[in-house]
């Protein structure tokens, strides 16, 4: 038995962790019951901590084939997204959808049906999957796709690993002409301005806003909106166009130890937020940014989850329907700034349409905040849960570490439907994470 947690390092649970090397060994783990597959441990909470068995997929990390005509990559579920980029960006291909870190596995991306800065245009990762092969409760390997086993396919995307162990998949990459992003940065003085700017930027491929969640009053929700487009070869300067897929090597920094708790106090976070806003405002306008800096700014600091100290941190991420977003977001930001529990990394993003059995995104807006773990922030998150429920929103399970089953089921009627499906297919006993147990899934 070992103590295991997610990226937020909270909560920790005892679980039987193993790293099988064969399909047979995975089946043997699953047969012991209450198992969940684990990728690179980037879900924040207990999504990938097995109620009994945790099956690490790190030995299933092979790329199996690539079609240079269509951009379809077939790979094992434990392949890390960053390795896909390293291998195929130099050949002109980029993930069609990417979350904010490249240290996730393909299996994890499917299970959480991750979204990126282009959700309003392209939807979630699930839109770019040709097929999935997964190991079911009895150990049989099944391939599912929109054409065969389509219900299993749809429920596996965003199903948090609770339909089986995802073993292999075929995903579609997108062609790009360079490794550069044309970024446009707009400082926006409050929430209304930010929402207006998002709506006006509907045509942009990528859009995301960093939001200062400690500002109050007229400045509540002041943000920096970052729009992006893949730069075409014609848009590159002469020195860059010669090697359009080469970008400067970045120095990786590592957080070597747990920073003291309380270092990220109201005051330091306030100072950081103010500084970040003014720095961004000074750099407003257009610039050319390399892919790593644009998509994965935090990946440059390895082990950044240690800045919150030994007790760990939690992330809150909800989605609100379009019509209730302005009021709902205002209420969420007011509660956060009143509590003075400023989040270091607060992100606002517009979602497009999405219809799926259990995936997180919905037409509207999503807000992500993170907090160190303490009594005050735990209470604040309860409050944020209530506000989200009041405005008809729902929660991102890849980020959740503490929500109650009641909150989930009140926010999302699909949860009961998913649980019923799991019962009818005999999936509940073999596949259980700590999270699915907590949330009665």
């Amino acid at each position, binding site marked *: 038995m070992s103590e295991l947690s997610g990226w937020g390092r909270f909560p920790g649970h005892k679980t039987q962790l193993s790293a099988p090397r064969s399909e047979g060994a995975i089946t043997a783990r699953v047969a012991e019951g209450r198992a969940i597959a684990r990728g690179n441990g980037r879900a924040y909470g207990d999504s990938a901590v097995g109620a009994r068995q945790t099956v690490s997929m790190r030995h299933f990390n*092979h790329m199996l084939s690539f079609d240079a005509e269509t951009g379809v990559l077939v790979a094992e579920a434990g392949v890390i997204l960053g*390795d896909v980029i390293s291998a195929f960006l130099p050949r002109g291909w980029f993930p069609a959808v990417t979350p904010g870190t490249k240290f996730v596995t393909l299996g994890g991306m499917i299970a959480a049906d991750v979204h990126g800065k282009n959700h309003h245009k392209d939807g979630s990762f699930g839109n770019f999957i040709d097929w999935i092969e997964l190991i079911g409760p009895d150990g049989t390997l099944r391939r599912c796709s929109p054409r065969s086993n389509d219900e299993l396919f749809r429920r596996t995307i965003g199903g948090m690993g609770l339909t089986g162990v995802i073993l292999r998949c075929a995903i579609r990459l997108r062609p790009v002409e360079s490794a550069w992003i044309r970024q446009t940065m707009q400082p926006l003085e409050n929430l209304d301005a930010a929402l207006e700017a998002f709506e006006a930027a509907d045509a942009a491929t990528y859009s995301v806003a960093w939001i200062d969640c400690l500002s109050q009053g007229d400045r509540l929700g002041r943000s920096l909106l970052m729009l992006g487009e893949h730069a075409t070869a014609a848009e590159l300067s002469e020195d860059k166009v010669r090697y359009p897929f080469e970008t400067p090597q970045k120095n990786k920094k590592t957080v070597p130890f747990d920073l003291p708790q309380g270092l990220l106090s109201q005051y330091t976070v306030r100072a950081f937020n103010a500084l970040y806003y003014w720095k961004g405002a000074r750099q407003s306008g257009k610039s050319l940014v390399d892919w790593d800096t644009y998509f994965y700014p935090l990946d440059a600091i390895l082990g950044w989850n240690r800045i919150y100290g030994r007790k760990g941190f939690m992330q809150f991420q909800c989605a609100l329907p379009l019509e209730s977003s302005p009021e709902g977001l205002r209420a969420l930001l007011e509660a956060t700034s009143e509590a003075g529990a400023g989040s270091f990394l607060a992100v606002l993003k517009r979602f497009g349409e999405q219809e799926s059995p259990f995936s997180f995104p919905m037409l509207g807006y999503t807000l992500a905040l993170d907090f160190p773990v303490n009594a005050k922030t735990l209470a604040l998150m309860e409050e944020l849960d209530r506000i989200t429920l009041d405005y008809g929103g729902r929660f991102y399970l890849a980020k959740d570490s503490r929500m109650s089953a009641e909150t989930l089921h009140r926010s999302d009627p699909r949860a009961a439907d998913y649980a019923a499906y799991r019962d009818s297919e005999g999936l509940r006993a073999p596949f259980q994470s700590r999270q699915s147990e907590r949330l009665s899934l």
Partner: protein
Amino acid sequence: MTKGSVLILGATSDMAQAVARSYAALGHPLQLAARRPEALEKLKTDLELRHSVPVSLHAFDVLDTGSHPAFIETLPVLPEIAICAVGMMGEQVENEQDMAAAAQVMRSNYEGPATILALLANRFDARGSGQIVGISSVAGLRGRATNYVYGSAKAGFTAFLSGLRNRFAKRNVHVLTVLPGFVATRMTEGMDLPPRLTAEPEEVAEAIVKALNKGRNVIYVRKIWWPIMAIITSIPEAIFKKLRI
């Protein structure tokens, strides 16, 4: 400039695969040799996809020393770097009673690896260039009751590498001895190893690449093994024989 080919013997092991990934990432063509090369098909495809380097697979039986000269002839080109990751720990208790099993461990860790590396070294010398890496073990630095059959074979291998290095010191053939210490691999799975002393296979691979670039002779992977082994090798035998370590 095209980079020199890297031959990896015993390529199915975790350490060997990590080394293969490191050299493929640096753009070196690979020759992967193992008793069952078909087990390496998936790795070959993966490395070719990720790094666009040619990877060839070769059947190689370290115990069939008579076949070693012919094996070298089957390689597409005489490699610039040859890395021997062949090894077999066996069960000490079994090795104490069953001499056939003990002999198998001795031959797998010493006779076989030494034979193939000697043949390669001669060819490297005739060509005038080449680098040889032998993955040996700290277990070879002093015999202990818990694994002396394995340890003695590794001791022989370490001495053989040292002799090769000495012989070629003034020629353009370099020999690197690697004493990895504990490594989290299939071989040690399920053992209760102290985390501070236990390297990941990727660390071993990085250490090898770095050490070859610098022309190092003998390396540990985690530095902490140097003082540990300095102490273990300096304990007087009269005391050592009574210890259980």
